[in-house]
């Protein structure tokens, strides 16, 4: 599939939003869905529906096969070694909670330290904070530098003899910084430290290879990857998933249940308690296939072009201040406009059909550091074009006019 015409695959772009064509620049928040994904969900609910894995009738067998096919597709897509290293969750946030909680139960002890960064999304901070509360665990922060980036050097500096886990984002959802996660993983492993990667912004935009990367955990948010809402993927090394205790208890994750004792099932069942997001998992296979049909290299090139173009546009625009100028930058353009609050920017842009996000983007630590309460953020996906960024820029100019800025 050619990336040039890819907008055609997304039905929403046929809609008029407030009489405008939709200029969707909020993909870091959630991506739009290609027709194949919506169609698959519809087909499943109207022609094939059954719960998976629990019945032996025809529909249940078919659904179970579809469900497990997605697991295999994800495994291949991220090049995991084993199919059972893929656990479906309700989202990346749950995936990160699962890791923090189970490491907390079995691996972390009083006095241990966890290293995160000032760039982290609340979903990769609050779950660790829970451990700080329940156990006597310390959280350290690697510092964001003036480019909105985290350096390997600062990570190294912040590691102590008590650091047990490094939990870190692959790509900042505010500054767009792509972190050197392979180097960080190598460094961490040389000191026996577990590496947990928040891959929410990495997975939709970057090439993934778990065996090469060698991290211990990697969390993915499917709705940002052209997939359904209510679904996430946790990649975890088999060794860890086998060693750690289960997270939620219920149907499907057990082996044997007695009144005085319970034994748990094997992977991946152990971490998939209760009826899972069946339809969503089954449809997510289409998201993966869709991305594969375009090719991640093409996606990366397309988005890199867009960022470069957008960055130049905004840098040239008076009163616009871009946030973050990291060495490697993903498709996120966060900015402030002198004297105009981001929420006002977002409202004015919306009137032109330009959808962006305003706020702290679940990164209060970073915004505190930057000494701003909020920022405006335009973020790209495969369907965006340079034309979209031109419209963004025009609309920002409209905003300046209203606020009497030059």
């Amino acid at each position: 599939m050619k990336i040039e015409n890819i907008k055609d695959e997304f039905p929403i772009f046929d809609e008029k939003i407030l009489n405008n064509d939709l200029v969707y620049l909020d993909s870091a928040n959630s991506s739009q869905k290609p027709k194949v994904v919506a169609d698959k969900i519809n087909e499943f609910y109207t022609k094939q529906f059954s719960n998976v894995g629990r019945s032996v009738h025809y529909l249940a067998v078919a659904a179970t096969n579809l469900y497990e096919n997605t697991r295999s597709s994800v495994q291949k897509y991220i090049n995991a070694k084993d199919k059972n290293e893929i656990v479906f969750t309700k989202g990346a946030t749950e995936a990160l909670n699962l890791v923090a909680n189970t490491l907390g139960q079995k691996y972390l002890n009083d006095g241990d330290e966890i290293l995160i960064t000032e760039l982290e999304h609340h979903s990769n901070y609050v779950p660790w904070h829970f451990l700080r509360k329940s156990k006597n665990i310390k959280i350290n922060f690697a510092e964001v530098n003036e480019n909105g980036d985290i350096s390997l050097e600062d990570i190294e500096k912040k590691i102590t003899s008590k650091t047990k886990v490094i939990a870190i984002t692959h790509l900042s959802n505010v500054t767009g910084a792509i972190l050197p996660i392979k180097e960080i993983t190598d460094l961490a492993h040389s000191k026996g430290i577990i590496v947990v990667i928040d891959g929410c912004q990495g997975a939709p935009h970057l090439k993934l290879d778990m065996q090469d990367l060698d991290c211990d955990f990697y969390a993915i948010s499917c709705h940002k990857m052209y997939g359904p809402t209510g679904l996430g993927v946790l990649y975890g090394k088999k060794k860890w998933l086998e060693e750690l205790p289960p997270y939620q208890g219920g149907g499907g994750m057990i082996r044997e249940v007695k009144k005085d004792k319970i034994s748990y099932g094997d992977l991946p069942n152990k971490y998939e308690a209760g009826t899972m997001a069946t339809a969503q998992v089954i449809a997510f296979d289409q998201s993966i296939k869709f991305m594969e049909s375009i090719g991640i290299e093409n996606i990366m090139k397309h988005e890199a072009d867009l960022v470069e173009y957008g960055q130049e546009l905004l840098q040239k625009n008076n009163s616009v201040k871009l946030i973050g100028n990291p060495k490697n930058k993903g498709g996120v353009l966060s900015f402030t406009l002198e004297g105009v609050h981001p929420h006002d920017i977002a409202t004015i842009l919306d009137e032109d059909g330009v959808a962006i996000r305003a706020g702290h983007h679940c990164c209060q630590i970073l915004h505190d550091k930057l000494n701003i309460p909020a920022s405006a953020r335009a973020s790209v996906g495969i369907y965006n074009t340079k034309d979209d960024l031109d419209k963004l820029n025009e609309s920002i100019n409209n905003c300046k006019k209203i606020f009497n800025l030059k």
Partner: protein
Amino acid sequence: MNLKELYQEIILEHGKNPRNLGKVHEFNKDAKGHNPLCGDNVHVYLKLNGQKIVEDISFEGSGCAISMASASIMTDLIKGKNEHEAKEIVEDFLGMIKENPDLKSEYLKEDEKTKLMCLSGVKQYPMRVKCATLSWHTFTSAMDNSKEITNTES
């Protein structure tokens, strides 16, 4: 919809130079307000005297033009009113933002009404209504001596 109606000059001016920003000296009532959607926080302080008159009122916080202007205009209008008058003005304002075309309160002079009506443009922007009402709800909490943080969601 009409952005010009939302961002009238008077809103932009109050947004940029909000009146009564800061902390009232020797305030005897205060409350915090929070808008979970955008993360805006406001803190309203006031001094209610023995005759139940709002002798002084101020606010702290940062936010969008709408919320700053609204807090600025509110504090301007409430200052000097007694409890009963203030409550009626708040109700009148909230009613206007929600559904009523006009302001009705006797306690507002015509030029005050004109000023307040400038905020009526947010009606067409449901997501921004909370920006306009946060400081007003917070004022009510302060008067009621509520210890809870006012939350525009509920």
